[in-house]
């Protein structure tokens, strides 16, 4: 691997330099300062990470550089100086976004990778065409050469069978492959600067590790300057040379990565790092000993097979085994984590347990509060009703899980009302009790969900789940949509309520840190099967199965001294 120049020591001009950039959004007669006086410089071969929580202005900063901020956003002040290696400096902020001069920079000199590989590619154009398009738009080569280049790029980003893949549509690709195609697209014109806006956030840890490795390899091969935007301190520790911490549109701290992790200065940075390490793999779990209660849920040989499907066009698909032969017990008061990559069947398993989906085989024996047992797998609708009072679910997205046309009080009271458990004055009292439990004042009951932030909404969702006084809660990625500082608050809230209310949890997540913090036992799922199950400590410290080991190795550690593999360090 060629030794890349040490950019910090080089006297050359930075390839990209921001001076006092401000991008504002006029909303009504207020002005939202999405980006406020941001300055930084980026050299060839360097990786600069911008880190911050949602709403910190990190994405808008990236978009401002290419002048693709959506209306009504506008760059109101500052300079964006781009200096190609052999050319003279251009101030991008002075260019009109709709001119050919601006377009000449987009894609050719500065390219961007977006967050959502599912929606950032056009669904109706072939992957190869989308890669070729930039080459053709900048008139760099003819169609035939562009196609050959597209195939070569797909090979560079390690997509198997690039000759066939070039004619595929994005929806025929997995998330990781789409993100690889996206990277190929960004690299097509040999840009000098690559902006990556949360490129791995929507991916599994193992895929994330592969993509990060790929970006790093390509960066070294092409001498790219990389501006990497993320909210994940683990990722920052793994790839950054320099770090910029943003909050409310402003830069609160800038430092070299080692310094930032060793001696953070700004209180906000300290909070971010604390939240990241608390849920990191090296931190102590929240619960000391696993309680040894009786088994309240016994799952035996649970299987869900989707039958073979005939297609409208083309060949029929073979049957898929979403969940295959899963067996385990859940004890009273226990927190069981189910972890796995997307497509491993963990969500399907959760849906089978609460009987949103009907398993095709096996038993789910639930012991009710009164001691009687029910086989969830074979119950009919009316038979499920009493069980559903004791077994509740919390979903991933607090924005989608609350009906926007119902008040918070109605949302929380609904499970009580439809089960005819409480009404009138008693219901109102119960609702304000529940709000108190999740740390919200009782007078919010009359307001609508849109008035609340993501973390508050998740509290409302939890209050709703607690309403009928359940014994078992199945939480499906309950903290994944939240910022890292909020994640721990929500987990701690659940842990605090647990002994008081006598709850047990099945916690489904792809985030090993969260699972480790919260759970007593962990079940690792892969391709619909449980490959390993055991106490959280054992699974995390002494994983037995190769798959579990791979999964653990892929978690980015929030410690820049422990980088994942041989990397040319700049500092």
């Amino acid at each position, binding site marked *: 691997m060629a030794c890349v120049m040490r950019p910090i020591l080089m006297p050359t001009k930075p390839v990209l330099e921001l001076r006092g950039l401000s991008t504002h959004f006029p909303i009504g007669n207020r002005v939202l300062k999405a980006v406020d006086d941001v300055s930084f410089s980026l050299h060839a071969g360097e990786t600069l990470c911008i880190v911050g929580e949602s709403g910190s202005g990190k994405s808008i900063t990236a978009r401002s550089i290419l002048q*693709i901020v959506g209306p009504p956003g506008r760059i109101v002040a500052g300079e964006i100086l781009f200096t190609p290696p052999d050319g003279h400096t251009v101030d991008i902020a002075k260019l009109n976004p709709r001119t050919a001069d601006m377009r000449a920079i*987009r894609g050719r000199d500065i390219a961007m990778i977006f967050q959502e590989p599912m929606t950032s590619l056009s669904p*109706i154009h072939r992957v190869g065409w989308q890669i070729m*398009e930039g080459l053709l738009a900048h008139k760099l080569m003819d169609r035939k050469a562009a196609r050959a280049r597209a195939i070569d790029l797909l090979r560079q980003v390690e997509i198997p069978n690039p000759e066939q893949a070039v004619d595929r*549509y994005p929806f025929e690709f997995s998330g990781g492959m789409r993100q690889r195609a996206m990277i190929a697209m960004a690299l097509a014109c040999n840009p000098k600067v690559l902006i990556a806006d949360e490129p791995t956030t929507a991916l599994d840890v193992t895929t994330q590790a592969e993509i990060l490795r790929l970006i790093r390899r390509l960066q070294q091969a092409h001498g790219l300057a990389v501006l990497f935007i993320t909210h994940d301190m683990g990722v920052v520790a793994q790839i950054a040379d320099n770090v910029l911490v943003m909050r409310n549109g402003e830069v609160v701290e800038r430092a070299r990565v080692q310094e930032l992790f060793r001696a953070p200065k700004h209180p906000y940075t300290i909070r971010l790092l604390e939240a990241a390490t608390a849920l990191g793999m090296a931190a102590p779990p929240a619960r000391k000993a696993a309680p040894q209660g009786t088994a309240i849920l016994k799952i035996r040989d649970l299987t869900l097979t989707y039958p073979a499907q005939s297609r409208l*066009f083309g060949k029929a698909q073979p049957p898929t085994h979403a969940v295959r032969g899963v067996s385990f017990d859940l004890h009273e008061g226990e927190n069981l984590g189910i972890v796995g990559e997307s497509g491993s069947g963990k969500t399907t398993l959760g849906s089978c347990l609460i009987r949103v989906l009907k398993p095709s085989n096996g038993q789910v024996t639930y012991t009710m509060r009164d001691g009687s047992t029910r086989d969830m797998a074979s119950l009919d609708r009316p038979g499920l009703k009493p069980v559903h009072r004791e077994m509740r679910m919390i979903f991933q997205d607090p924005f989608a899980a609350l009906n926007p046309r119902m008040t918070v009080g109605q949302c929380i009271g609904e499970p009580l009302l439809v089960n005819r458990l409480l009404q009138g004055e008693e219901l109102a009292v119960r609702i304000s009790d529940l709000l108190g439990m999740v740390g919200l004042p009782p007078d919010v009951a009359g307001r609508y969900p849109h008035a609340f932030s993501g973390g508050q909404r998740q509290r409302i969702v939890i209050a709703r789940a607690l309403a009928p006084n359940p014994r078992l809660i199945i939480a499906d990625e309950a903290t994944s949509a939240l910022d890292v500082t909020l994640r721990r608050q929500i987990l701690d809230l659940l842990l605090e309520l647990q002994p008081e209310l006598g709850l047990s949890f099945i916690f489904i997540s792809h985030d090993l840190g969260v699972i480790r913090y919260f759970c007593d036992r962990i079940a690792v799922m892969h391709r619909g099967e449980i490959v390993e199950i055991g106490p959280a400590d054992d699974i995390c410290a002494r994983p037995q199965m190769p798959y579990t080991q791979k999964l653990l190795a892929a978690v980015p550690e929030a410690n820049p001294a422990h980088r994942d593999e041989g990397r040319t360090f700049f500092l």
Partner: protein
Amino acid sequence: MGRFIVRRLAGMVPFIILVSITVFMLIKLTPGDFVSNYAAALAAAGETVDDAMLDSMRARYGLDQSWLVQYWDWISGVMVGDFGYSFQWQQPVSSLIGERMALTLILSVSTLLFTWSVALPIGVYSAVRRYSIGDYFFTFVGFVGLAVPGFLLALVLMYVGVSVFHSDVGGLFSSQYADAPWSWGRVADLASHLWIPVIILGTSGAASLIRIMRANLLDQLNQPYVDTARAKGLSEFTLLVRYPIRIALNPFVSTLGWILPNLVSGAVIISVVLNLPTAGPLLLQALLGQDQYLAGAFLLLLCSLTVVGTLVSDILLALLDPRIRVS
């Protein structure tokens, strides 16, 4: 693809049979029959009606039999291309509706083309320049177009045509071509008359399509893939045509199925007002007079048009959108 079309065509057969039964039943459900209507008309004109004569008429037309037998007589004829006999016109149904159906189709297709060619560019403009003066203007015009009933527009246009331009805007042909055989002169005459009903018929459709296109496109304009394409350095126009418009067309195409029959049946009132020799007015008369075979033939054709339109739009959709074709 071939298998899909064959399967869809095969599926159409039982559906159309069911439709034909329903249509015939509905016609027969109304109280009375053609003969009682005829008798009422005679009585209204002050003539005496002889019951024995009415009974013999019923026997002659087969109206004294059960509706199942009548249905079978009709449908077995339809299978071999004989659509029955119109009592009102004393003519075979097929000779009555042949030209009218053709003219209806010409009018409908012209209206469809007019609607699309007006609605697409304006819809795109309104979406891309949202909240501009132009957008507000077209939004206003669009709502006026939606709110004004077609027949009122027809009356106003006719009045303006007669009082200002001193020309007769009714009908599809000048008097010398009305009953003439087809010739180039007749085609040119048709074209010179066609634009007025096309505008009247197309206005409300175009107005609603502008709104649909605007909404579809606004959904697509903020999609992340548009940003991706913009970040590649494409020009705004290329970008617009290649990505969001292409995808916003899908709902357009999928509504094709019901636009076709809608144009045919929705044109009835306007055709009466404008005195157009299309299918609409004839269908109305046939229904009022319980001319069962004529009405049945029309309704059956309309339903077939719907089914064929849906199939065409499904095929177009599969061609436009690889997600439907491949997955």
